[in-house]
């Protein structure tokens, strides 16, 4: 039983790492503008799909991955420039609806460009399972976990230690005051969308060798990432990461110990329970309400 539990945990943490990265992407844009960007899942898909097609076109693997990240960042920033910025005086709800529209648009564009097929990426290094006791994991699982950890630390550093990061946070606290002290609010938003897209692309590239991707695979990941962000407390970056990992582990343990048929139901029940007891999420500050 302990062997099984260990395997469930490994599965849960791998899947949870991806939820965490997507959730973190939600958090960054939310922090900068109070907007929940529902095109976050599409960033994951675009990152993975661009990498696949660059690689198939003969671009060396590492360059294909790097270029895919840049393409996704460009898409994220264009989204901000062309869809979000023109509506800057719109209410938060309107902007959220714009992001839903953008996600449908991106999905449709991906369908036209890349078709309906399912694609995979080769693993980063040789695909030999590593055994720990009776449990096994793939090297790619380690890349997913390690990559997520690095990305989280980098984001943390960016917001805590750099002037730009602090400026983005300032925009979310009070947009008017931020612009009065000389912060270019539009540029900060642009950067926030760029970073979110970057995180999405990283998640897509890390996980596609294990899970495959298709034009519509962003929907489910987006939903799970959103749940992770809510669970951890919307607006708390470490909360989103904790929420993502927790969600992955709950799903895996639920499927393993109770019933695989009710895997998603178990996860959603836990989320609802947490929100009943702590509406602000696990690590969200209780006084999140602003007047």
């Amino acid at each position: 039983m302990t062997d099984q539990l260990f395997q469930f945990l490994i599965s849960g943490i791998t899947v949870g790492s991806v939820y965490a990265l997507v959730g973190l992407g939600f958090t960054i844009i939310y922090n900068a503008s109070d907007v929940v960007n529902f095109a976050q899942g599409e960033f994951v898909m675009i990152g993975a799909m661009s990498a696949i097609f660059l690689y198939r076109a003969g671009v060396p693997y590492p360059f294909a991955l790097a270029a895919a990240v840049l393409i996704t960042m460009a898409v994220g920033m264009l989204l901000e420039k062309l869809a979000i910025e023109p509506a800057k005086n719109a209410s938060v709800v309107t902007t959220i609806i714009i992001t839903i529209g953008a996600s449908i648009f991106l999905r449709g564009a991906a369908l036209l460009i890349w078709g309906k097929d399912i694609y995979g990426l080769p693993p980063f290094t040789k695909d030999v399972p590593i055994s720990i006791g009776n449990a096994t994991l793939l090297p790619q699982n380690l890349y997913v976990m390690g990559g997520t950890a690095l990305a989280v630390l980098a984001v943390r550093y960016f917001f805590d230690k750099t002037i730009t990061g602090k400026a983005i946070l300032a925009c979310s606290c009070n947009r008017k005051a931020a612009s009065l002290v000389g912060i270019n609010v539009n540029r900060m938003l642009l950067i926030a969308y760029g970073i979110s897209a970057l995180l999405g692309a990283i998640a897509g590239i890390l996980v596609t060798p294990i899970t495959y991707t298709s034009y519509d695979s962003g929907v489910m990941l987006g939903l799970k990432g959103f749940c992770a962000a809510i669970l951890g407390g919307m607006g708390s970056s470490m909360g989103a990461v904790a929420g993502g990992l927790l969600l992955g582990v709950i799903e895996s343990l639920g499927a393993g110990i109770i019933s695989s048929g009710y895997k998603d139901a178990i996860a959603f029940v836990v989320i609802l329970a947490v929100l009943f007891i702590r509406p602000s999420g696990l690590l969200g500050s209780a006084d999140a309400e602003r007047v």
Partner: protein
Amino acid sequence: MYKSVRMIMAFAAALLLCSTYTASAGDTLKIGSFLAVTGPASFLGDPELKTLQMYIDDINSKGGIDGTKIDFIHYDTKAKAKDAKNFVNRLIKKDRVDVIIGGSTSGNTIAVMDLVEKAHVPLISLAGSVKIIEPVKKWIFKTPHTDRMAAAKIFEDIKARGFNKVALITGNGGFDKSGRAQCLALAPKYGLVIVADEKYGNSDTDMTTQITKIRSTDAEVIVNFGFGKAPAIVTKNIRQLGVKLPLYQSHGVASKKFIELAGEAAEGVRLPAAGLIVADKLPDTDPQKRVLLAYKNAYEAKYGPVSTFGGHAYDALFITVNAVRSAGSTDRAKIRDEIEKTKGFVGTGGIFNMSPSDHLGLGLDSFHMVEIKNGDWVLVN
């Protein structure tokens, strides 16, 4: 207000025009279809429609069926049951078709069965579920193998290899659920015991948890019913966990895409498949070989890689054409009777022998058990 009334009247007039137009066209066979050409089931509807169009154009350019030209009317359901109902209503009442081919999915077909029965129009479905032909409905036929046949073929092979304990793992789609139900129902008949019954979501990204649970049972083989990327993930996860049990997949993954996605992990996987994917490997004595290669070459010359789904449309079309030819008329009731009398028709799915009690007419021998070896299909004897 006034304007909208005028609009409605104009629309009604247009409808009237349409219906008189269709009624006056006498000497043609009207085939209607409602397929899921776009939407989530487009991998079914797209090759089906292309196949129908290609062969109908071909028949018409050669002068039709003994002089009777085919008039083809098509609607895209996008796999939505509500659209399927509306379009079939239109096919029956407005277009007044003689035969209907479709739909692509079991859901779409089942949604229109009552409608078609009441209207007395012969319908040949291209969907998999056994519920379409069981219990037998007078006007409803189908060409694809049923999920029950796939389960039976798999169990036959498991029994022949001397295994008794089966672990089942299935997704949450309609195909998966129906396949699972058939497996559970059929297992006792073959003397097999289902020792695990695991499930996953079709958009899930990792099934190691379910397979870990299977590993802790005394299962001797694993059977996975599903299609899309999930079966490929299951296959890879099984290998990752070092589980050495033989793995069976369903006919849902009988395409090269599965081998491409699962890569090395697919080696040794067995599955029941229609003749089309192993056409060039069949012995020359196989009566199907000529038909299969002809269809494959014609389709691939025009559209690219062939799939078994387009083959179902080929079978439905030519069963209809043969029925019209032997009926010598486009009368719906006569066509229906002749479809039911289809005997020895060599199609892509197998050799069809229909009867009043069997509106599919395929035996288990129409499935070939194949194993994946060196990235290709190999026939298992």
